[in-house]
């Protein structure tokens, strides 16, 4: 009997053994009293160009089979009590593996049936612009964002102050200047320049002048100027004096 097998055709040593058992038409339990063991060893011996990775498992099995064979020839070696003998182990392993092979065969039918169901590729479906549902938007969050932004801006400005000129809030208002003028003219006439601070800004001059015009319009103030380059003198209207005197 010439056996031309390639170990690559088998899913490992257990698969090969099961095939041999199947060919010999024997029960798994009779493996050691049949020629299967010899056949297995012969196949592994004859297999040429096995790569070591695959070969090791086949050779290891061959060794196990040889051990079992030698045990049957030699007088019985007493194994330790709770240790299973290699025959039992191998038979159990073969039976177990055979079951899974059987299941795999059934699953192959499932696979074939499922492969008759064809799916289709997704369509290229034109979509409208996405719709967003925004969550967690609160006015408080908005204010907080502003506060954070402001804090950061301030820090940035402090770090590079020379980059920016600081504009102060307007210190002067027409109303306060009007009050000032009325107060300072209580005891007689006052020169326009005398109402200004030591180094007045343009803004201050303009505002003072606006206040002056407003008081003139309301008739509460009189203005006298001797000549075009003389100082402007401001004095209260008599009526105004009267009223305040009362």
């Amino acid at each position: 009997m010439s056996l031309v097998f390639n170990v690559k055709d088998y899913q490992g040593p257990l698969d090969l053994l099961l095939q041999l058992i199947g060919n010999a038409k024997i029960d798994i339990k009779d493996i050691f009293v049949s020629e299967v063991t010899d056949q297995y060893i012969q196949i592994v011996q004859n297999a040429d160009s096995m790569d070591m990775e695959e070969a090791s498992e086949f050779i290891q099995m061959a060794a196990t089979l040889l051990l079992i064979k030698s045990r049957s020839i030699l007088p019985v070696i007493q194994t330790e009590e709770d240790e299973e003998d290699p025959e039992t182990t191998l038979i159990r392993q073969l039976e177990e593996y055979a079951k899974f092979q059987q299941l795999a065969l059934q699953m192959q039918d499932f696979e074939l049936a499922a492969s008759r169901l064809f799916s289709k590729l997704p369509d290229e479906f034109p979509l409208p612009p996405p719709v967003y549902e925004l969550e967690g938007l609160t006015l408080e969050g908005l204010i907080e964002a502003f506060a954070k932004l402001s804090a950061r801006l301030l820090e940035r400005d402090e770090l590079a102050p020379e980059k920016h000129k600081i504009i102060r809030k307007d210190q002067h208002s027409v109303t306060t200047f009007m009050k000032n003028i009325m107060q300072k003219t209580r005891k007689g006439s006052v020169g326009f320049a005398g109402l200004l601070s030591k180094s007045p800004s343009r803004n201050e001059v303009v505002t003072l002048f606006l206040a002056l015009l407003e008081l003139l319009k309301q008739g509460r103030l009189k203005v006298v100027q001797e000549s075009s380059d003389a100082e402007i003198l401001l004095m209260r209207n008599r009526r105004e004096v009267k009223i305040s005197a009362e």
Partner: protein
Amino acid sequence: MLNDRLCGIIESILFVYGEAIDIETLANALGHEVKTVHSALNDLEQELQAAHRGLSIKRFANMVQLVSKADYATYVERVLQPVQRQSLSQSALETLVIVAYLQPVTRQEVEAIRGVKCDYSLQSLSQKGLIADVGRKETLGRPILYATTAQFLSHFGIQSLDELPELPADFPGEEGIQLKMELQPQEKTAVSRR
């Protein structure tokens, strides 16, 4: 119907094929005459009109294609493009705050304040419908002006922009923002609110 099975087979083929297929090719593969295939397609077409069918047949030239039913397109959209729940990032919120208080405002103005590029956050706010392009500023380059939308108001639960919290007098940001605004002088009163 005599063509029952043929209808089913054709539907099966058109489904897997996906694209439009030549009717003659179809007939040849099935070993039927073109006429028979046409008649089966007529049956199929009629059958597909029922409400419980979601497909329809498209025929043009000598081609035929199985497509989804136009009537149900909105439902398909709902699945393919579900509403996305999102919240705004801190950077988007900041950009939004600036737009809300200084609108209408250009990207350059927003960037001058934030000190970083804002294309992305402006785009994302636009996409989410919180701000909109309301025109162009009549300056060099005619940059786009952004303003907040009605949706912005509804998202933040306010009726009008007047309900936005007033900025505290000593708010450090106020000064900073107005300072930057000098770069692009504009009349605060000339703001047109939508």
